[in-house]
């Protein structure tokens, strides 16, 4: 969040804010942080998109269906983005989440067909299998000392290969899964869809951990400077391992929810969604080189990505341009990051010289 600081360093107040923010009153500090946060900026963009679409077609927001879709559609990507954010904060990346999602989505269907396990057990199975697949990534990255990009690119293909071999040209149809499970994909409690509630609960849990727990703060430390973290005595391996396991578990959960939501699962389920997850994280203000950003930002980024895709055709922008718009957003976010980071660095230097 320090990347968002951009005041004139000449006034003593500004210097104080940069060099020693804790000297300011607490209320004011929080207000400044919120107002200057990337999260707020993306949230405003998101609200603008929703407003534009609603103005063109009021039913974008004002019908029971569209309210549900608005909240429901991003929930799967939201889970992936939360996991991805944790991994990216440690200066790693997890490209295998799309394949993990595909694998657990297919597993979900197979478990219903072959074993008749209760719904809760199937959800847990998806979560556990996802976590194990994530652990494989974590072990390879933490102990193999190979860049996560390469490792998870490899497991992206390996896991997808497993699904392809297993599923072949077979496919899970809605007919194969119990009604109660499929209803989970569309049901609402107090007009909030169940899948969204699941995603939000996960999000709050992860967000709180990152913000206040010792382990969470260590993840930021590792991402800021991995070597320094080792010298400082942090258990870098264990933390990185845990981050990948979490990302895998959330991708596994997302796979189960995918099956509930879409009702059909083929071997190609979730192909390419890992890039959307990375995009959501980047748009949400998590620096790709680790050490900064929040899961809230990533979640809003995911929400924005999905909602933009839904809103563009309504606003009248043709199908084919939607990807270009998303690309523009990503590049815009990165450029903004760079500019803000450079500016903050410069001002910090100036502030230090002034002080």
């Amino acid at each position, binding site marked *: 969040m320090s990347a968002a600081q951009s005041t004139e360093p000449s006034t003593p107040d500004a210097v104080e804010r940069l060099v020693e923010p804790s000297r300011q009153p607490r209320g004011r500090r929080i207000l400044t942080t919120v107002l200057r946060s990337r999260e707020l900026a993306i949230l405003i963009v998101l609200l603008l998109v929703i407003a534009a679409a609603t103005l063109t*077609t009021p*039913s*974008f927001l004002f*019908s*029971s*269906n*569209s309210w549900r*879709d608005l909240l429901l*559609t991003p929930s799967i990507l939201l889970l992936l983005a939360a996991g991805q954010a944790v991994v990216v904060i440690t200066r790693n990346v997890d490209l295998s989440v799309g394949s993990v999602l595909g694998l657990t989505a297919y597993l979900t269907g197979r478990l219903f067909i072959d074993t008749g396990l209760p719904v809760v057990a199937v959800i847990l199975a998806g979560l556990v299998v996802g976590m194990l697949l994530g652990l494989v990534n974590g072990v390879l990255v933490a102990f193999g000392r190979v860049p996560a990009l390469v490792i998870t690119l490899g497991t992206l293909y390996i896991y*997808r290969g497993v699904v*392809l071999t297993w*599923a*072949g*040209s*077979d*496919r899970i*149809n*809605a*007919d194969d899964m119990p009604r109660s499970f499929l209803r989970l*994909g*569309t049901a609402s409690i107090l007009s909030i869809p169940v899948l969204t509630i699941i995603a939000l609960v996960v999000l709050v849990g992860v967000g709180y951990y990152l913000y206040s727990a010792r382990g969470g703060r260590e993840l930021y430390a590792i991402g800021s400077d991995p070597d320094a973290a080792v010298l400082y005595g942090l258990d870098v391996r264990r933390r990185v391992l845990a981050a990948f396991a979490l990302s895998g578990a959330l991708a596994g959960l997302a796979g189960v929810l*995918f099956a509930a939501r*879409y*009702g*059909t*699962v*083929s*071997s*190609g*389920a979730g*192909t390419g969604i890992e890039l959307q997850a990375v995009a959501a994280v980047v748009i949400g203000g998590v620096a790709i080189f680790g050490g900064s950003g929040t899961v809230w930002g990533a979640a809003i980024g995911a929400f924005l990505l999905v909602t933009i*895709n*839904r809103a563009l*055709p*309504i606003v009248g922008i043709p*199908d*084919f341009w939607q990807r270009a718009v998303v690309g523009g957003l990503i590049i815009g976010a990165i450029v903004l990051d760079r500019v803000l980071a450079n500016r903050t660095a410069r001002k910090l230097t100036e502030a230090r010289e002034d002080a």
Partner: protein
Amino acid sequence: MKIQTKRATALAALTLSAAMVLTACGGGSDSGSGSGGEGGGGATTVTFLPKNLGNPYFEASDAGGKKAVEEFGGTFDEVGPQEATPDAQVQYINTVAQQGINALVLSANDPTAIGDALEEARSAGTKVVTFDSDTEPQFRDVFVNQASAEGIAKSQVDLIAEQIGDEGKVAILSAAANATNQNTWIELMKKDLAANHPNIELVDTVYGNDDDQESFDKTAALLQSNPDLKGIISPTTVGIAAAARYLSDSDFKGKVQLTGLGTPNQMREYVKDGTVKGFALWNPEELGYLAAFTAQALVDGTITGKEGDKFTAGDLGDYTVEADGVVVLGEPTVFNADNIDDFDF
């Protein structure tokens, strides 16, 4: 094309056994039994290359192909990419050519992009049969057409017209924007609608790229941007299932009609819960079965792919090659609540 076919035949003859050559030359235009090469030809190797794996439609057609190949005593193989893109098919075509497979039966992801690879395969002696989605005619020996494009377009227009009372706004949810057959059908549907159903207005065509999630989200967007929509036509198996899934849990269920091309197994749930009244498809198993027999007839020389060639396709009976080397399977079947349980594919 004729010259190419002859050259391909000659090359094929070189690589095959002497007995095979005799059968090939002796076959000529003799329409006799399609499985004539069974004894003399040894095991005909046939490889099926669908647009992509994980697609129930091709699962059924490949099963039909396998059945046919087993009937005439050949060797069946199935390969395919994960995603329905032309570049993904090229490597499989190259492999088939290198392996010296007798016949390649494929559904093309692009009418021209895989042409070079196919030409190479044919010059290596492999017979090329397209089914479901054709290439340009010069790149293959025979195209096994599921039904005439007019028949397919008409059956879907008739279904939607009946379901919405021949009046109101409809939209199309297609596969990829450059999918050959979907685009042909869409053009014909437009003509049919304009000529015979003046009160039906086609308001939009969207593309779900044969991806569950994308088709699902496109359906939602379609309904949102056209609140007074009365019907959706989805001439692709992935699209219709995704659209049905969306409709089945939405306020639009029963208000917006959905029809198109789908497989009974995918659609059973939605036909039974009343989301979908009826949809059409030719029997893909029969399509694969016919394609395999066509491949066999090409390999043993019963047909060369020219207009008027006749052959027998096992249980399906006699077929004649039409202009441009096309063999037509027949009329599509309509599936509804009454007959859907009679089918399993």
